[in-house]
């Protein structure tokens, strides 16, 4: 099978895009044994796998290294294995994204034909077209569902379906847009791959453990996976709360019913923006008539001081929406995907505004702008 071509894909293609279906067929046929510690291919593969993960941690992007195609190809499933063994959710996301960025860079210089082959391998319904429009050449049309699955995760208004050329369920896209959308597909494919391996506990080959350790060290050096840096914000600013959290706070305050998911989200949010456990418990005590004992237990659990010892992160906007907890859609909401990001950005904005305006000259409407001493 080696040296051949797989439905328009060369071995080099598989090395470039090791997450393809065809690539995993190649890997199984290769039959690399993770216990065969004297094999030179294995040690090179392990080194490269480690580097992939470290690149992801340090730079957020894996750089391609195509000198040894076998190693480049084989090291991908091994890297996936390493990341699952570390078992940190944040790392999984970051790694998937870093691999997707690597792929996007390579994709951007592929020929249209090759892009179509790659997209098809990933399950897309894509067709070659040639439609010039307003000075832009559209070289592909994509099925509605493939377009939406990937573009709905992108924020820029140019990706909104309403701003696209759509006809009979086909969306026109340019070559670079295909590369961008493919990289979305790739990052979710890799996340899926990592989730599947998540359950794996038994029979970790001994030889892998030192690599897992190296990854853990690199993470702790960078304080990764500990959530956003709270020091940036300092004290808790209620004004900076996203609409969803304000709504939950108000509901608690008015003694209205707040579903469990809402209380969870709110608690995790407060802990993450730097409120201490005691303060959170006190806040709940003030606004709602919960039993202090139960509240404390729950808060401590979410803070990671009980039970699983994992500190819970508040849910993303997407999850909030699916629980019906997002009341949002103010302007900043449009730009963020996580209530924490909303808070960070808003807090920064507010702080900036509080600083006295020093450059009065040329400021629009200078009269009302500054703060009078």
């Amino acid at each position, binding site marked *: 099978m080696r040296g051949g071509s797989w439905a328009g894909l060369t071995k080099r293609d598989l090395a470039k895009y090791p997450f393809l279906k065809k690539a995993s067929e190649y890997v199984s046929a290769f039959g690399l044994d993770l216990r065969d510690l004297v094999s030179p291919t294995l040690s090179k593969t392990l080194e490269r796998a480690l580097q992939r993960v470290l690149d992801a941690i340090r730079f957020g992007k894996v750089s391609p290294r195509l000198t040894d195609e076998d190693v480049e190809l084989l090291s991908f499933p091994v890297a996936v294995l390493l990341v699952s063994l570390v078992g940190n959710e944040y790392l999984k996301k970051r790694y998937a994204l870093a691999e997707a960025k690597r792929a996007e860079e390579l994709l951007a210089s592929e020929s249209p034909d090759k892009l179509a082959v790659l997209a098809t391998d990933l399950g897309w319904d894509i067709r070659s077209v040639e439609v010039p429009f307003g000075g832009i050449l559209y070289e592909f049309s994509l099925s509605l569902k493939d377009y939406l699955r990937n573009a709905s995760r992108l924020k820029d208004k140019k990706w909104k*379906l309403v701003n696209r050329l759509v006809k009979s369920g086909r969306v026109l896209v340019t070559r670079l847009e295909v590369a961008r959308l493919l990289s979305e597909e790739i990052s979710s494919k890799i996340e899926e791959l990592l989730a599947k391996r998540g359950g794996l506990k038994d029979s970790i080959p001994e030889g892998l453990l030192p690599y897992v350790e190296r990854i853990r060290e690199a993470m702790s050096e960078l304080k990764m996976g500990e959530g956003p840096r709270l020091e940036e914000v300092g004290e808790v600013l209620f004004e900076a709360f996203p609409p969803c959290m304000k709504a939950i706070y108000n509901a608690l305050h008015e003694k209205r019913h707040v579903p469990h998911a809402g209380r969870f989200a709110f608690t995790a949010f407060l802990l993450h923006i730097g409120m201490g456990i005691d303060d959170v418990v006190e806040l709940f005590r003030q606004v709602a008539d919960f039993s202090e004992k139960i509240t404390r237990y729950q808060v401590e659990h979410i803070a990671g001081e009980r039970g699983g010892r994992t500190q819970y992160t508040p849910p993303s906007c997407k999850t909030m929406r699916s629980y019906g907890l997002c009341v949002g859609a103010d302007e900043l909401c449009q730009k963020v995907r996580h209530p924490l990001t909303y808070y960070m950005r808003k807090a920064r904005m507010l702080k900036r505004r509080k600083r006295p305006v020093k450059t009065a000259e040329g400021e629009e409407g200078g009269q009302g702008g500054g703060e009078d001493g």
Partner: protein
Amino acid sequence: MEEKTAKFLRSLYARYYASHGPVEPEDIGHREFAFMTFGERMVIRHRGFGSYDELKAFMAKLGPSDAFYSSAYFQRPDEPDMKAKGWMGADLIFDIDADHIPTSCKGEHDIWACRSCGHWGTGEAPDACPRCGSKELAELKWICNKCISAAKEELIKLIEVLEEDLGVDRSDMVASFSGHRGFHLRVFSEDLRNLGQDERGEIVDYLAAVGLDPEALGLGPGAKLGLDEPGWRGRLAKAFYSLLYRADEGTLRALGLRKKAISALLASKDLILDSIEHGRPIYLPRGVGKSSLKKLLLACAEEAAVKVDPVVTRDTHRLVRMSGSLHGKTGLLKVDIPLDEVEEFDPFSSALAFERDWAKVRITDSLPVVPALRLADEDYGPFEPGETVELPLQAAVFLMCKEVAELA
């Protein structure tokens, strides 16, 4: 609603289901069912049925005021916990509600009255009584041909955009009258079944032209624009064309254009129309710049947008009223309409369930007057509070469901 009335309606609906049953939902074994009842307004949820006969028997026994099934397919539809149900996908659904479309008739037939001081008015109810400040208001939302026509127009637009732009097969669409003030459209397509909330949201935004940005569509001064272009470019071209075609000073002023731009546009109307007809760069006279063009295009988008309820379509766990079931607020049927008969569909003759029999009802005194009603080409009312009337069953049921009459 008095218990006597509720009991009457329960048994009437039950008898209807015993003889007719609802339309059999597609893939019945994977749907969740939910029901509401007259009187105590009990809600029954998380029901699953193995067969149509089982469902029909259940409804014939309960006589529910309203019957729903899930747009979603579940592995275990009768599990009460959402997570345990095992979501397998959901039909794409659209809801067009006359309530959300401004029509002049609402000011004529919608009525509210204050329960404490009796003050009343027409149109949409205020938050509180303007005379005494009480928030206890009785509200009556009526339907007439005007509201129905306005909603119908949106339905026709919806079908067109789904087919032409989004490539939805006509044979995958089922349109229905909701039994009250609107229409539903369900899309049964394997391809679209697995769309998530955000993806469905993008479809709604597309229909409603939310987030439409003329510049992102390449439409600035000097851009070419032709009538048969794909997507919103073509829709804007058509809307722009017809807006300009019938534009006068008043309509353009209402869009917030300046005097100079208005007279320039009107003076070169023909040249502009001509340029669109031939797909040439849009001819823009002096005095009409980037911002005027944007105003015009956004007004066109607003005009051409399809007014669907965004919340309904986004939701991947929605309950949908069952076709062939009776509406608890009107006694009218939810009926499916063949796509090419939407235009002439008349709910006041095609959604009737009770043809024979009469009933005697007493008009309640919560409102100063109950507006007239037209059913199967007959007019009934208007009615006075306290009046007792004998009416054909369908009309009597309508008034009782609207809670403006009790069984006499």
